[in-house]
C-alpha cells in the first residue's frame, strides 16, 4: 500500500469506526467520532493535491492544486466542532444523571 494522504485518511476512518463499535466508554466513542472526521478531512485535502502544484493564485503558466476540497473542509471542520461539543455536553449530562459513562451499565438502567 502506498502511504499517501488518501490511503491514510481511509485508514483513519476505519480506525475511528472500529473505536466507535468496539469501545464501551462514552468518551472513547466520541474520540472515535473525532478520528473519523480527521480522516475525512485528510482524505478531502489529499483529493485536491496535484504533483508539484502551487497555490491557485493565477500568474503565468504554473500547475495549480485544486482549491475546492480545501474550502469544503473549512465547513466540515465547523460542523464537526458543533457535533463534538454537543456530544460532550450530552456525555456530561449523562454522567450527572446516571453517575457512570459505561455504555453497558447505562443499558441496564
Amino acid at each position, binding site marked *: 500500500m502506498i502511504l499517501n494522504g488518501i490511503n491514510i485518511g481511509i485508514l483513519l*476512518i476505519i480506525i475511528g469506526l472500529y473505536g*466507535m463499535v468496539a469501545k464501551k466508554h462514552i468518551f472513547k466513542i466520541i474520540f472515535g467520532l473525532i478520528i473519523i472526521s480527521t480522516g475525512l478531512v485528510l482524505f*478531502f485535502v489529499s483529493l485536491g493535491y496535484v504533483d508539484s502544484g502551487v497555490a491557485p493564485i493565477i500568474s503565468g503558466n504554473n500547475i495549480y492544486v485544486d482549491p475546492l476540497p480545501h474550502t469544503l473542509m473549512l465547513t466540515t471542520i465547523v460542523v464537526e466542532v*458543533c*457535533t463534538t461539543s*454537543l456530544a460532550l455536553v450530552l456525555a456530561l449530562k449523562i454522567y450527572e*444523571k446516571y453517575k457512570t459513562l459505561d455504555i453497558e451499565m447505562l443499558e441496564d438502567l
Partner: protein
Amino acid sequence: MDIIFIVAVPFFLAFILSLMHVFKKIVFFENLLSIMGLLIPFLILVSTFSTISSGDTVSYNIGGWSPFLGITLEIDSLSFFFSFISLALLILIMIYSLSRSSKYKVLYLLMAAGMQGVLLTRDIFNMYVFFEILSVSTYILVVSEEKRSYKASFKYLVLGSVASAFFLFGVGIVYETTGFLNINMMNTPQLKITFLLFLTSLGIKSGIFPLHFWIPDAHSIAPPPVSALLSGLVLKIGIYSMLRLFYTVFKTNFFEMNDILMIVGAITVIFGAVLALAQKNLKRMMAYSSINQIGIIFLAFSFGTELGIIGALYMILAHAVAKACLFLCSGMIVDLNILNLKSKPSVSLPFFIGSISLIGLPFTCGFIGKYFVCLAAMETSNTLYAGIILFASIISAVYYLRASYYLFRIPKDYKTPYLMQIPVYITSFACIILGVLPILIMDIIELAAKTLGGII
C-alpha cells in the same frame, strides 16, 4: 420573491428569536415570529405552483454564480411535493407546540430551515451541510426533562454522525470521479462503492432494517410534537435524498441490486410490524410502526418503475399526515401504557381515523398509497411483496385497533387547550380528504414520478 427566502426566512427569524430570548420575553411577539417564519416560506412556495404544474422548474443561483461554480437552489415537482407537505405539517405542529419555550422555537425554526435547504439545494456538499443543520437541531430537540432522553439523544447523535461521515465520504468520491458537485450535472457513470456509501448513510437517517435501532428510543422518548416531526418528516427527508440521488445520479439500474433492496424493504416491513405488536408503550409501538411504513416506501421505489414511485410518494404523504396526527394525539393521552390508555374522548376519534389510515382501510389516504404499491408489485411480477405488504397491514390492524379500542373504552374528561386540538383535527380530516379525493394531489405526484422516470 426569490425561492432563496424559503430557506433564509426561518434562519433569520431563528436568529431574531434567540436574541429576543436574551433581552425581553414578549410571548405574543415570539409566537407571531415563529409562525411567520414558517408561513412566509409556505406562501412563497405556493406562489411557484403555476410554474411547477406546467412542468417547468424555478431555480436561483446563490450569489449570481453559474451553476457550474456556485450553489443552485431549484424547485421541481419532487421538491415542491416534499416541501409543501413538510411546510404544511411544520406550521400545524408549531401551532400545537406554541406553549413551549422560546429555545424550542429557535431550534424548531433552524430545523425547518435545514429541512427546506435539503429539499431545495442541487449541490451535493450543500445538501450535507443542510443535513447537519437539520440533524444537530433534532438531536437537541429530542432532549426533554426525562432522564432517559439524554441517552436516546446520545445514541441518535452517534449514529447520525456516522451517517453524515459516510455521506461526506461519498461526496468526496463523487467529486473525484466526476469533477462536479451539482447533482443535475453528474451524468457520468458512478462507482458502486459510492452507491453503497449513500445507501448506508441515508439508510441510517431513514431507518431501513439493519440500521433502524436508534428509532424506537429517539421517537418514543422525545416530546410528542418532536416525535411527530421525527416520524412524519425527518425520516422522509432521508427517503427524498435517496430518490433524488438514486434516480438522477445513479441511473444504472441500482447496480443490479434491485432484488437485494426489495428483500431489505420486505424484511423492514415485517420486522416493524411484528415488533410493534409486542410493545407495551403506545409511543414505542408507533415508532416501530414507522419502521414498517418506511419499509413499504423503500420497497415501493426499489421496484424502479414509475408506478412504484407514485406509490412511494403517496405512502410518504399518507404516513406523514397520519403519523403526525397519532403522535400529536399521544401528547394529550395521560397514561401511555396500551392497556391503560386514558384521554379526553375528543382525541379518540382523530386517533381512530389516523389508525385506519395507517392500516390502509378504504376511504383513507393510506389505502390509496398501498393500492398503488401493490399495483406496482403486480406490474413487475413481484406478487410475493404485495402479499407481504397486505400481511403486515393485517398485523398493524391488530395493534392499532387494540389501541383505539382501549382509547374509546375509558372516556375520561381532561382539559386540553384548543390550540392543541386544532392541528389534530386538521391532520385527521386530511387523512379522509386525501383518501376520498386523491385527485387533489395526484397531478403533482404524477409529474414528480415522470421527472424522475423509471430505471428499468
